[in-house]
């Protein structure tokens, strides 16, 4: 969750960012929430694009499949060290909501930017280096709601982390 918070906050700040080959892509400033944390009511008006501030709620849907593998670490002082790595196939649901003025446009923009960002390998490389890899986002799905316009972006991925108690080195 912390990694996702860092990653999303870097983009959804109301500024422009280069995403892959696309230069100066405008991102709305968004409220970021995780699991069941409550969204502000009503969502505040945003300073950017003349649109309201959307809220993105990330819900982790749990590990589906888990496996381990011994791998040789590459680079650095631990190069050649064999380490048992655990992989978990997981999925996240991103609920994108917006309210007040231009809520449909705001919600659509935020959901489209999010899906595009998650599908961009260059931009998610930093997440991959920290163990959140093989991201496969789906296209945003619109869900009707009256006081919030709501869209869902689902994203499958793989978590990769070392099992620290089981490390060995080739001698």
């Amino acid at each position, binding site marked *: 969750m912390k990694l996702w918070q860092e990653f999303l906050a870097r983009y959804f700040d109301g500024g422009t960012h280069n995403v892959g080959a696309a230069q100066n892509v405008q991102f709305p400033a968004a409220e970021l929430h995780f*699991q069941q944390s*409550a969204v502000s*009511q009503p969502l505040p008006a945003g300073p950017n694009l003349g649109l309201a501030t959307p809220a993105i709620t990330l819900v982790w849907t749990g590990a589906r499949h888990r496996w381990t593998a011994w791998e040789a670490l590459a680079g650095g002082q631990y190069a050649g060290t064999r380490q048992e790595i655990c992989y978990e*196939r997981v999925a996240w*649901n991103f*609920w994108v909501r917006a309210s007040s003025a231009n809520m449909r446009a705001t919600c659509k923009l935020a959901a489209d930017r999010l899906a595009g960002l998650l599908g961009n390998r260059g931009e998610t490389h930093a997440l991959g280096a920290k163990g959140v890899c093989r991201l496969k986002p789906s296209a945003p799905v619109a*869900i009707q*709601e*009256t006081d919030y316009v*709501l869209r869902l972006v689902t994203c499958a991925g793989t978590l990769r982390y070392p099992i620290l108690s089981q490390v060995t080195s080739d001698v």
Partner: protein
Amino acid sequence: MKVESNIQGVIDRLKRKPRDIRAAMSRTLAPAEWDKPLREEAKRTLWALAKPNVGLAPNAGLASSEWDFVDAFIDTIMVAPFLTGFFVRMSNPLPPVLAVEDFMMARGLQIMALRRGSGPMLWSDFLNQFDQMITDWVATEKRKDRRDWDKSDEDIGHFIGYLLLTPDANLSEKENAAKDKLMPHLRDYLERRQKEKRLNSETINAWLLAVLAAWSALVRREFPGRFRGHLAAVRAEL
């Protein structure tokens, strides 16, 4: 040099393939396989979407927190076999409380339908709801006397329901007098039930649609992996 053929093994394997796929498919689509993940997905989704309704007093006719209703929604989830697969449904656990006039109209329409022979079950859901509410009132608020000692709450509720929904002309004088005495208490009870903590219909609709979308994504995501796993297990069986 001896040339051997493995063609018989290949033919046997091909013959088994459709059977293996059918077996793996039926195991993958077994309701028990999906019940837990679908319930968990619905719960996570509703916990994420529910709002605390900050600023609303608990007695303002709305819930103090939408989180209070999540478990009631989860309890309505049903996963059951359907043809060669399964279906899953979640419904609104909070049906709207109708007024006495609505029930009277339902009873009148039912009588009319019975006379025309167009189906005795018409409107029975509404009338069962009315019977249930009268029974609740009998159980919680009615001052019982010696006439009630040998009757269950359901019997009393059913009789009072009959009195209240039957036109005056069809009742005896004594029954009409009892009806006039009971009606104010029942009206008061129904009005209080209508003002209880409830979710608005837009929120209920949004919750049902959101859970449906989350379920759809979950099944699409999970199905291939589960099917592959079951197929490998079937093929490994002797």
